[in-house]
């Protein structure tokens, strides 16, 4: 106990002494510096301690350092690649077009992803329905898919004897998948009547 108190008191006195003589920067106070004498704290380069690899390395060894200089051509090839083989920088694509139907971008010669997705989903629904309907029986007739509220088209002579398997989709026909080329020219007349304002004074 007494030893601990002695040690802490001693260290406090040491610190106080250092602070009085050298200040908080670890250097002697400016008043005590002599003119013309080299300052101790500035660590002036000693002429005998020149840079040498021997001093730096000591007994160590160096691993895997370049032995020869890489030529500029090699360096550029490593950085950018070769134009014919592996060109690393980004290159602008010139084979992109916008779809005439939906306006989404697509590669030239490749189906438009937006339009294709729509068709694909409808096709999958139809395929599921057809597979469900046909089952494992031998397929002997053409399949006709009818949407909600549609009827089988009749033959030229008016009879309905076309041998087809009818598959019904339980939903109305999508607008974009329409067999009707004509569009509606006029809107249906409205059922509602004009109501004149009343009680206006």
């Amino acid at each position, binding site marked *: 106990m007494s030893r601990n108190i002695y040690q802490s008191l001693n260290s406090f006195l040491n610190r106080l002494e250092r602070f009085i003589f050298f200040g908080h920067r670890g250097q002697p106070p400016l008043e005590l510096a002599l003119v013309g004498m080299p300052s101790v704290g500035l660590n002036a380069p000693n002429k005998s301690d020149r840079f040498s690899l021997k001093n730096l390395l000591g007994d160590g060894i160096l691993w895997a350092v370049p032995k020869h200089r890489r030529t500029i051509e090699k360096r550029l090839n490593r950085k950018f690649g070769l134009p014919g083989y592996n060109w690393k920088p980004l290159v602008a694509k010139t084979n992109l077009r916008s*779809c*005439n*139907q939906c306006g989404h971008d*697509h*590669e030239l*010669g*490749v*189906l*438009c*992803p937006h*339009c*294709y997705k729509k*068709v*694909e989903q*409808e*096709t999958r629904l*139809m*395929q599921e329905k*057809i*597979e469900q309907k046909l089952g*494992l*029986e*031998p*397929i*002997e*007739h*053409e*399949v*006709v*898919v009818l949407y909600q509220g549609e009827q089988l088209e009749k033959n030229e002579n008016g009879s309905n004897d076309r041998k087809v398997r009818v598959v019904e989709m339980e939903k109305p026909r*999508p607008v*974009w*998948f329409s067999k009707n*080329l*004509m569009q509606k*020219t*006029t809107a249906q007349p409205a059922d509602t009547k004009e109501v004149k304002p009343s009680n206006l004074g």
Partner: protein
Amino acid sequence: MNQADVSKLMSQLRIAVKPHRNLRNPDGPEGRLLKLRKTVTALVKHERIELYYNRADEARGYAELLISNAIRYGDRHKATMELADYWLLEKQLVHKLFKVLVPRLENCNFSYTRMYKAPRDYPGMYYRKSVLELRGNPYPSLLPDYTNNRNLIHNVLLDEARKDYRREKLAELADKIASESAVNAEKVGSEGDAKEAENVEKA
């Protein structure tokens, strides 16, 4: 000179056949053919399938050959029946080939199948995808619909006809409104006269 004309001995494909691909398979050539048989079967069954480009392109030729032989020789030809039996793994599709596809495609002047390049997710996998379909299928068309192109001659004519029709209808409507308003004005005028007469009498 006395050799038979090869083109008449076997049916000519209506598509450009690309060089044979080595579709790799652990089971060797048999496995490869099984893969192609599965593809041809799926094509005849579903009429539109999406798959990798190489496999679709390879299977397309066999499907074309099968259909063209079926059209050419009919179902009473042993070799064609064996071919159909080989390529179609699900046997109900043999009926479909001869009873549905032959009547549908016998007057077709182009290839019996169509192949489109399908879009891939960017950057996606390296393999290209494609859609393979039979002609005359019931599904919505994959080709862009140009029927609404304003510059097509029938659309120009239809637009003009539509405009004329609207003009006529508007003229009729205007006439109707004008006649109605005239009748109303007359009524209002006669009523006003009667009121004035009453007022004069009261005064």
